[in-house]
């Protein structure tokens, strides 16, 4: 043993440095081959003489025993080679060598004869020794020891130390009994298929194998009673017979029952063969020397490096300047949330909602007011778990050390995790628009004052629908025409009726002449238009001037031949006394009269009179013109442009703008309404509004488009009349629902700015509905923000 151990140690140390590696294989095999067998021989001899001797003591004996020296004479030269290497025992060995050298010289012949005998004995006893040695090997941990020992006998067993024995197979014809034993050819099928047949299968020739006769239960019982080994039998269905189990089969069953491997000889814990281990093998698996390339620099790398070197030389790569400070790596506090914003601001990143901080009632010692009363506890207990506002009841403990573990802890953590993991913290792309912001920003009506808000004066006296009202240019007087065939003139500031003119037809339209120098009121009444001069209301100078103005035409008309479409006539003396100065007789009933801004021309609309529906009359010359040879559609309203020689004609669906000087159509407004009822032009002339019987009010910006700039649908019933204020940015509409609506309609001088329209006031139920008619006419006071409306309930009302 000691002799082998040092060699292993030596090889172990040698394995570490690479250069010595090459030398080692040359020496080591020699040592093993020579030294090991010798030592074994000695031990064998020792075992024969003193069988109980310890293995370790052999080495000691080796030096002291003189007898044995003779036996080893042949091998001394080998020993001498070996010993110097073993540092530990070097001194002892040197002493032994000296002795041996002396022996060799003296008794050379004797030794030879002896050695032959010994070697023969060795061979004879080898088998016995080996068995002993095996026992020793099993005790020893080192398996290599055995290898060495067995080397001369069976080198194979070096890798398979445990030899398994299988029963010998006798290669005779009958050796494979499998076919003969089982001649049923049905194969591995459920045998109950043959339960109903007398046979149980077919033999190899295709003949039926009849079911062997089986005893009944009694026979079975008897056989069990008789045969003591019957419990060892098993039924073979294929043959339909009971088969006695062999001892090996019983052993297999027993092992299976014991959950052991059926094969008793199989060792599942065989020793591993360590092909690759930390040990450096004397004979490595691959003995190929290190390739040359391991020892020479790489050509490819040199190429690449040269490329870089060249680039640096040529200045394509600029090395960093000396002052370069590498950027500081970014660190952040992993545990700090919220403030530091460790994560990049990303659209889809949503931080997890924070846990609620504990409150007073979660304290172990909460203030008394947080402690629940008996009733509250009871109520809490009776509540459904889901309904409880909190999943705990505040409790009080005397000291923190008395607080028990929190039973819900795991549950709560788990739920929290579920929340974080499963709750869809998704950023929804919802249109987050405040509906308020979609409403156009309109100024508050309060900022748009003044506008009329309350009823101030009622003008009572008419006995029929008041179809038309008009305020004179001074703003002091108002005329109204009614279905009771009267025209009345009112003092606006008091509501006093100053004059009444009785006519013979329904009055459809009254309009004051716009010229302040001439006081004249045009009245449409049936088939004729009358011009009235209200005497008393105006100063004598104005009255006289008006009188002459109205009279002037009669001198002119005498020259021309009478126009059949419009006949200018003198009133009767009685009518003259009343104040009527001129009659213009038309062919069809007149619906509307409107003045040119200068008060000389006025236009009439008689919708029934086909082509001559629109006529323009000149007061001073008593002449009548028919501006349109043919009218496109039924004319509803006409209007002179307040500043330019333009003329607006509203038919049922369209408003057309004509240039009177050039005699051409300028523009056609497409209203989009079904039936226009009224029309008014903004005093600046660039905008107009229309009202329609289908409840719509349309604002047109003439510079903008031929389509309505705004369409307002606020009325419940047909709109009857619309009107602009001449000074204030106001307009109003009235409808059959009896309501009057007032709008702020600001027109800016800046052409880029669209008009601002703000509804400011709805005057409800201004006029009672009579026969499905409500408010019929609205008119603004020329100088004040006062609105006058007339209705089917015979009243006229002034709002301020």
């Amino acid at each position: 043993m000691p002799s082998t151990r040092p060699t292993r140690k030596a090889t172990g140390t040698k394995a570490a440095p690479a250069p010595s590696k090459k030398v080692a294989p040359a020496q080591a095999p020699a040592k093993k081959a020579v030294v090991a067998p010798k030592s074994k021989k000695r031990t064998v001899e020792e075992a024969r003489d003193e069988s109980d001797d310890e293995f370790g003591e052999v080495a000691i004996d080796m030096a002291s025993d003189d007898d044995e020296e003779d036996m080893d004479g042949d091998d001394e030269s080998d020993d001498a080679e070996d010993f110097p290497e073993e540092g530990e025992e070097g001194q002892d060995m040197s002493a032994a060598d000296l002795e041996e050298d002396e022996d060799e010289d003296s008794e050379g012949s004797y030794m030879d004869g002896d050695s032959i005998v010994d070697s023969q004995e060795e061979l004879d006893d080898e088998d016995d020794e080996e068995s002993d040695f095996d026992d020793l090997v099993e005790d020893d941990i080192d398996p290599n020891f055995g290898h060495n020992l067995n080397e001369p006998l069976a080198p194979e067993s070096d890798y398979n130390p445990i030899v398994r024995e299988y029963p010998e197979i006798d290669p005779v014809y009958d050796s494979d009994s499998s076919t003969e034993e089982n001649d049923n050819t049905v194969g591995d099928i459920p045998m109950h298929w043959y339960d109903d047949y007398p046979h149980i299968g077919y033999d190899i020739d295709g003949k039926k194998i009849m079911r062997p006769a089986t005893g009944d239960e009694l026979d079975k019982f008897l056989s069990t009673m008789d045969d003591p080994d019957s419990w060892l039998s098993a039924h073979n269905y294929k043959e339909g017979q009971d088969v006695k189990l062999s001892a090996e089969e019983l052993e297999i069953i027993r092992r299976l029952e014991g959950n052991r491997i059926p094969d008793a000889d199989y060792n599942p814990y065989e020793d591993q063969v360590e092909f690759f281990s930390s040990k450096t093998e004397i004979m490595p698996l691959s003995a190929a020397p290190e390739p040359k390339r391991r020892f020479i620099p790489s050509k490819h790398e040199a190429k690449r490096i040269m490329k870089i070197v060249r680039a640096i030389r040529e200045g394509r790569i600029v090395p960093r300047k000396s002052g370069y400070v590498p950027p500081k790596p970014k660190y952040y506090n992993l545990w700090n949330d919220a403030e530091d914003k460790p994560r990049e601001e990303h659209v889809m990143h949503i931080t997890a909602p924070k846990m609620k901080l504990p409150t007073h009632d979660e304290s172990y010692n909460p203030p008394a007011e947080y402690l629940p009363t008996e009733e509250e506890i009871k109520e809490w207990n009776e509540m459904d778990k889901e309904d409880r506002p909190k999943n705990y009841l505040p409790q009080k403990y005397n000291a923190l050390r008395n607080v028990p573990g929190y039973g819900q802890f795991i549950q709560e953590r788990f739920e929290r995790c579920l929340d974080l993991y499963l709750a869809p913290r998704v950023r929804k792309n919802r249109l987050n628009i405040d509906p308020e912001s979609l409403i156009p920003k309109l100024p508050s009506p309060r900022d748009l004052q003044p506008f009329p808000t309350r009823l101030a004066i009622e003008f009572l006296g008419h006995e029929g629908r008041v179809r038309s009202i008009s305020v004179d240019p001074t703003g002091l007087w108002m005329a109204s025409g009614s279905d009771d065939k009267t025209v009345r003139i009112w003092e606006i500031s008091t509501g006093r009726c100053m004059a009444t003119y009785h006519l013979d037809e329904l009055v459809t339209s009254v309009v004051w002449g716009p010229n302040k120098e001439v006081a004249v009121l045009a009245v449409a009444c049936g088939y004729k238009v009358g011009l009235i001069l209200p005497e008393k209301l105006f100063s004598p100078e104005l009255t006289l001037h008006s009188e002459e103005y109205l009279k002037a035409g009669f001198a002119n008309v005498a020259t021309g031949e009478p126009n059949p479409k419009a006949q200018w006539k003198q009133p009767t003396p009685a009518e003259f006394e009343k104040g009527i100065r001129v009659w213009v007789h038309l062919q069809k009933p007149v619906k509307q009269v409107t003045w040119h801004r200068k008060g000389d021309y006025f236009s009439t609309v008689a919708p029934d009179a086909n082509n001559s529906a629109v006529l323009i009359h000149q007061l001073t010359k008593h002449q009548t013109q028919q501006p349109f040879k043919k009218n496109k559609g039924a004319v509803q309203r006409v209007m002179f442009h307040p500043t330019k020689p333009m003329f607006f004609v509203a038919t049922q669906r369209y408003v057309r703008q004509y240039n009177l000087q050039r005699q051409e159509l300028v523009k056609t407004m497409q209203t989009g309404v079904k039936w226009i009822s009224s029309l008014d032009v903004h005093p600046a002339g660039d905008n107009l509004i229309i009202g329609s019987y289908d409840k719509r009010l349309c604002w047109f910006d003439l510079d903008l488009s031929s389509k309505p700039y705004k369409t307002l649908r606020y009325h419940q019933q047909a709109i009857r009349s619309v009107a602009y204020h001449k000074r204030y940015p106001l307009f109003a509409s009235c409808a059959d629902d009896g309501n009057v609506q007032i709008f702020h309609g600001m027109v800016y001088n800046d052409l880029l700015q669209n008009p601002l329209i703000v509804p400011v006031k709805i005057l409800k139920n201004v006029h009672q509905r009579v026969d499905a008619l409500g408010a019929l006419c609205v008119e603004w006071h020329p100088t004040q923000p006062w609105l006058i409306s007339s209705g089917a309930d015979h009243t006229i009302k002034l709002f301020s």
Partner: protein
Amino acid sequence: MDSIADGPQVQVKFVTQQRQFAIPETGIQTPARLRRYGLSQIINLVLQNEGEKQRPFDFLIDGEFLRTSLAEYLEEKNMSTENVLTVEYVESMLPPTPLSSYEHDDWVSAVQAHRPGGFLTGSYDNHVRLWNKQAECTQVLTGHNGAVKAVQWLTSDGDNGTLLSGALDRSILAWEYSHADNSHSILYECKGHTGGVESISLNATGDKFASGSADATIKIWTTIIPTVSDHIEDVTETRKKRKTVKEDRILKAPISSLNAHTGPVSAVTFSSTSADTLYSGGWDHSVRVWDIENSVNITTKNCEKVVHALDYSEHSGLLASGHADPVIRLWDPRSEDSSVVKQTLSGHQNWVTSVSWSPSSAYMLASGSYDGLIKVWDIRAKGALYTLSHGKASKKVFSIDWSNDILLSGGEDNQMKIHKVQDMTDRAEA
């Protein structure tokens, strides 16, 4: 008194400017829950007024009428009950009582009271009427050709007198009447306006009067009775009219015309302290102050509404105006700011067409409105003191006039109403 003494108490010092009711100015421990009536009782107790002699008093704290209990007042103002509270007391104005109503044939558009000669009314039937206190119409002055919109006394000594009337026929007529022989005559016709005359005002010295008209002018006239017509260029006058109507009248031309207004002038009133200062208001939303001596518009104050009525109080120095909205505005005519309203009084439901200061008090004001109500205001109080109905519901009131103890009103119901108002002369400040 035991029950009264309960509850918290306040040290109150009562002061008054009415000497006859003065009490020692010492602090009186007063229960804080007392209201006007309780305080009034205390004053009467101190004055030892008993029975019939007891008078009602109103109480002012910091120039504002006490309308709640003392405790509520202090709480509202966040004042301590520990300090001495100075309370001024004035004799209460008794509620005006309707005396009588004088029937007319048409709307009564102008009233003025009351000189020894009685009451003066102008009506839409073109007549000016003189009434005595027995509701008898003593004189009907016929001569106008349109509704009379303004009347103004000139002189009156009981039986005889002179007066002015302006009408929608653009003329102002000066009348002379005599009850003795039941006669009247037109002294002269003031000619020059081209619109209806809306308002006439006589100045303090009585030598000039002003007229405001719908033709946007104010014209100043003298009260001197001319003997011959002034020459008026009247090119447009028809020959016929001159012959028929105006033959016998002496015509008078204005001494000056003030043309700054851009709309009808609806109200003119002379300052009662300065004979040359005229205030005017019109449809152009302006209240103007004029120096008629130089025909200069001194200041112009603008508001948002048409001015319908003006009145100047010599006691308070304030100008009250009624507008085409339900608000009465009080102006300080001396201030230079053009649009600063000193105070507004709200309570009416419709246009305020006439205002009249109390002739004796700096605080009392009456107003008539198209809502058919006459309201009496104390400008120290919030809201009207008394609301009087002129006549039938919501018949317009066109004109009111507050004389010493008489409040006249004329309106759409063809009546002139007379209310008896407590004479305030003895309440005048010392």
